[in-house]
Structures are given as C-alpha cells and as structure tokens.
C-alpha cells in the first residue's frame, strides 16, 4: 500500500523524525493561506500523487506548469495552485494518462548544503532490510547504481537490534558527513530504521535527504509504502489509503481477494496462480493476441469470488474474448465451472469463451461443462487454448 508524501512525513514526525514544516492545501486559497502561515520568504508547493518524477512532470491542461514549484508570495502560491489542483500531472512514472492532483503540500524552504539519498527496502539476498545510502541525492537510485555504483553504500539492518552506532558511523563516513551533520545522523538514521520496522514498511525512501546549512539531516521528500500482508497490525493505515490513486477494477478485485492488473489488450484472462497467470499472458502474446488483464483467482477463492472475477473481466469494454486457464491444486476445477456456469445467469456472456482445465477434481468439472448447453470451447493444453482464443477474434 502506497501513501502520499505528506502522509509519510506526518508519520515520520510522529515517530520523532524532524521534518520540514508543511501544510496541506486542497484549494488555491488554502495554498495562499499556507504560504502566509509558514511565514518564510520562500515555500515549495508539491503535487501529491503516488508517483515520482513530479518536479520534471508537467500538467496536461497546463503544459508549462511543473508538478513541484518554488513560490515567493501568497499570490504566487494561489496562482500556481489554480494551475495545479484538479489538473492531470504526467510524469515519467505515471504513464501517458497521468494522475489528477487533488492535494498540494506547501512546505517551508530550506537552506540546502547537500543532497543525499537514503532508502530502506527488504533485501532478498541478505534475508532482511537493508539501508541504502548515496552521496548522489535527487537522482533515481537505479540510475546511480548503473552509472556510479561506487557511490552507493549499504548496511544490513537487524530488525531485532536496530541500526548500530558503528553502522551509522560507517555510513556517515562514506557519505562524507562531519561535525553537526555526522551528529545529526546518529539520531536520524536509527529513528528512520525503527520507523521502517514499527510500521511494517516495504519501502521508506528519502530522496533527497538534505543536509541543511545548519548541519541537520532533513527529509525533503518521503516515499513510504507498507507491506499489504501486515496491514492487519496497523488498523489506522486504512484512513491513509487514497482510492482515487488506484484502478477501480483493481480495488474491486482486491476486495474480493483476487489479484488483478488491468492491461491494454482484448483477451480477458482468468487463471489460478500468479506464475501460470503471467505465463498465460505470455502465451497469448506469443500467438498474436493481447491480454486485457492479469487475474489470479488464488487458491482459496470460493464460487462467489470467482463469479466476481468474471464480472470484473466482463465489465472491461475492451474484452472481446475470455480465456479460462485453471490447473487445480488447492483450487478445485469444479468450483471454477460452477462459477462459470453461474456467470451466464448472473452476469451474461456476450463474448466467446475458451476453457482449459486440469488438476484437482478435473473429471467432475469436465462433466459439468459437457452437461451444460452453453457454447463453450474447451482446450486440451496451453497451446491449444491460446490458439483457440486468438482465433475467436478472427483475423
């Protein structure tokens, strides 16, 4: 689960991490008032969307307006806010469709001496979180890793003991921090690590992490995301969720316990298992078709959840044919067929359907299909299924 920068900073502040003063604005008037209240000569107004590259991004409706801008007066804040709020910001990460900006975060200007990078993620290799730091702040860390890997420094985080003082000294030394900045690191880094663990984060990325003229480490940006599997431990996070940032069908699927990703093609896919679902997409493409979605019904889905899966697929106007590919293990083939036949009654099928079944209870399921008088094409294996579903679209 992703949250906005301002929400991340509020959580960081609550965890005792010093963040710049900032105020949320939802209207141009609020933006102007925020500037006055901050009381400085300069403020930064930042579009709040769940995507990076905001500074270089531009609005569809206002091609000259950047997604992040420095302002020097309340009037300037209002004028810029008018060009930002309600408009669509397109950045390198949003794709062409862009994202609507509903909220601006107005933040005090800082006297920046240096910009660094700091990220905490779970590292598969070491089997735990790792702190990644770089002297190259403000750039994408992937870019730094590709171009100058010697500028990236790592320390493993033991989640039961926290980041050790020696690890902080190592990082501070490599980042070239001294005096007050090195001192600031001794509180900032362990607190950030504790924040990561306490909140079950999947990522905490501070880019840039600035060193102010006064030698304080301060997060200028904050990208925080949480482990979806651990949300049950953090009931308060529910209110941080911004549904307007998420695809409607994907939210609906998630509510039904399904894993769904909307794509651009016209062949709807219903598969069990993530690996098989990805492979089914690959196979459709190999045979000249385009998948309309990734959909993994999972192992524990019941008839109701599978029916919802059919509803979601058929609600996509781009879908011109549907491929069902099930290899039952924990999922039983007859559950799928029961939902499938039910979907004809409850949802209505107007597009061709190709079904390939194998695995747990497959004989029962095949008999159910054979007994029904629905116009369903059956397939014996993956290639057969892909060829048949692509053929239904005609050439």
């Amino acid at each position, binding site marked *: 689960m992703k949250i906005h920068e301002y929400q991340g900073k509020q959580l960081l502040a609550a965890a005792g991490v010093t963040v710049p003063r900032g105020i949320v604005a939802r209207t141009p008037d609020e933006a102007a008032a925020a500037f006055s209240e901050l009381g400085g000569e300069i403020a930064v107004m930042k579009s709040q969307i769940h995507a990076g590259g905001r500074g270089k991004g531009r609005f569809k409706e206002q091609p000259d307006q950047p997604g992040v801008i420095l302002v020097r007066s309340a009037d300037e804040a209002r004028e810029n806010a008018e060009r930002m709020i309600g408009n669509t910001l397109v950045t390198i990460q949003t794709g062409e469709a862009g994202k609507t900006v509903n909220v601006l975060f107005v933040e005090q200007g800082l006297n920046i001496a240096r910009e660094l990078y700091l990220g905490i993620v779970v590292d598969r290799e070491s089997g735990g979180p790792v702190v990644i730091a770089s002297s190259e702040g403000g750039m994408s860390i992937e870019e730094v890793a590709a171009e100058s890997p010697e500028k990236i420094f790592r320390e493993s985080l033991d989640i039961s003991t926290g980041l050790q003082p020696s690890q902080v000294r190592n990082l501070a030394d490599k980042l070239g921090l001294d005096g007050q900045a090195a001192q600031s690191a001794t509180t900032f880094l362990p607190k950030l690590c504790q924040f990561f663990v306490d909140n079950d984060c999947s990522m905490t990325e501070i880019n840039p992490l600035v060193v102010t003229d006064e030698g304080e480490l301060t997060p200028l940006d904050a990208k925080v995301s949480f*482990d979806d599997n651990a949300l049950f431990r953090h009931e308060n996070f529910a209110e941080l969720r911004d549904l307007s940032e998420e695809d409607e069908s994907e939210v609906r699927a998630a509510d039904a316990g399904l894993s769904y990703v909307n794509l651009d093609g016209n062949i709807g896919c219903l598969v069990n298992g993530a690996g098989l679902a990805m492979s089914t997409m690959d*196979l459709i493409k190999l045979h000249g078709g385009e998948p309309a979605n990734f959909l993994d019904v999972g*192992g524990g889905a019941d008839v109701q959840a599978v029916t919802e899966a059919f509803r979601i697929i058929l609600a996509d106007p781009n879908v011109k044919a549907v491929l069902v590919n099930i290899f039952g293990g924990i999922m039983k083939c007859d559950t799928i067929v029961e939902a499938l036949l039910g979907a004809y009654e409850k949802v209505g099928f107007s597009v061709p359907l190709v079904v390939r079944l194998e695995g747990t209870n497959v004989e029962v399921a095949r008999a159910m299909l054979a007994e029904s008088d629905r116009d369903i094409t059956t397939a014996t294996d*993956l290639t057969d299924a892909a060829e048949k579903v692509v053929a239904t679209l005609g050439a």
Partner: protein
Amino acid sequence: MSILVDKDTRVICQGITGRAGLFHSQKCREYARDECGREQPVFLGGVTPGKGGTDVDGFPVLNTVAEAVETIGANTSMVFVPPRFCADAIIEAADAGIKLIVAITEGVPVLDMVRAKAHVDRTGSRLVGPNCPGVITPGVAKIGIMPGYIHTNGTVGLISRSGTLTYEAAWQMGRVGLGQSTCVGIGGDPIIGTNFIDLIELFQNDPDTEAILMIGEIGGNAEEQAAEYIEQNVTKPVAAFIAGRTAPPGKRMGHAGAIISGGKGTAAEKVAALESAGIEVAQSPADMGEAMQRAIARQD
C-alpha cells in the same frame, strides 16, 4: 533416493483443524496410501494449539509440535496456519527439532518471515516456502497441495517459484515420458527459506536425479544467481523457463516477488543469463516438458 523427502519422512500438519489444512492432509494421506503403497503411515496427524487430545478424521490432534515429535515421531511439518500465526508456527517447528518445515500459507508479513528465517537458519532445520505448493517425491510422499495424479516417478528434479506453473511443468513432462525425482515449490515471496541454489546443489548431489528443470519468474535476481551457480557447479542437464515476459514494469503480478522495478528483474535479463550459462530455456510456457527433453538429449 531423492531430496528432502524419503521413506523415513513422517509428517504432521500444523493447522490441521482448519478447512484447507484438513482437506490437504487427507489428500496427502490418500496419496501415501494409494500411490506409494506405504505400509507405515506417512501422514501422522496434526497440531492445533488448544485442541490437543481430539481427533479429526482419524488424525490425532496435539497441542504442540514438541509433543508431536516426542509422542508420534514427526520429523516433517506442513504448515497451514493463518498468515498472522505462520512465523510463530515455523519457529515452533524448528525449536521442536522438525527437520523439514513446508510452509504453504500465503500472505505472511515480510518482516515476520525475516525473523522466522533467521531463527530457522540458527537451528539447522530446513524451511521450504512460505506461499508455496510444497514438496513431492512421486511414489514416496506428497507434502503439499499439488495434485498427486500429474506426477510420475522418474529422474528429473523440478524447482519452481510458482505453484500452478509447477503442476503445468510436471504435467507436460508426464506427457513426454519424463518422471520426477522430487518437485519443490520454493514460493513466490521476497523472503523464503530454501532457494534455487540450495536445491540445485541437492539435486546435483542426488544419485537419483539425472536432470533439473528450474522455473523462475520476473523480479529479483535469484535466477541470475542460479545461472552462475549452475555454470560453475552443475554437470547434469538443466532446462529453465521464466514467466512474465510480457508483464509491464512497475506492476506487481500477484506474487510479492514478481515485479519489475527500475528496469531490473526482467524476463529478458534472466533468459540471457540462463542461456549464457548453457541452460536450455523454454521459449513458451507450453514448451517446458520438451525443453527438458532437449536439454537431456543435448547432453547424451
């Protein structure tokens, strides 16, 4: 011989009183009885805290794993408990001296697994999973949720990050006459117990395994590391498949592990690494069984 599972395997299910736990314990028991012709029971019973002393469908239920080890001689556990209790169940099994812990549970918090994995590594137990289909040695024992009938006894070692794709691979191999020595689903999560390289090493050293099929997917760099390991250490023929060639970057495809981020972990990179290590790569998911055949033929 085979890996992980042999004739001395004695299994219990943690979470046997749950719906899925019981259903699959029954299926595993049936498999041992009907497909393996085993005289001694392979599947002994289960553990559910607070329900010790009861019985479900002929399976004795115990309160703790330690009790199951002492009283009924369990050395292997299939973990079916809900996600929030899974790490605790794994740690309990390791502390009780269970040698092989197979965690089927999907949706375990990542930091829970960080703790559980570190603990298991200290005890010397082996963990497979979580979020995996389990382990099967055809004709010997099935510990997991895979359908038994698709597997035949043979000499190919199968390793996979995906559940249903493992079934697909075993089924395709069956259609071209290739049986399996042992099949292991390692799970699709970022933090897992046993990884590709651990199993490749076991298969390389297993006299009953003559070839290896490895099924990976986008995300992470486990496949690249495995390719390097195979090039340096493996003499047996190896074939591979990578799922997710057409997955768009930045989108998580079901498995927490399956995401292409920052241009890393793409199928193209993985296929290139595997091919440069001399591994036969299936170009389509329908080609896994035949790719294994080609790899074997190439070696002969």
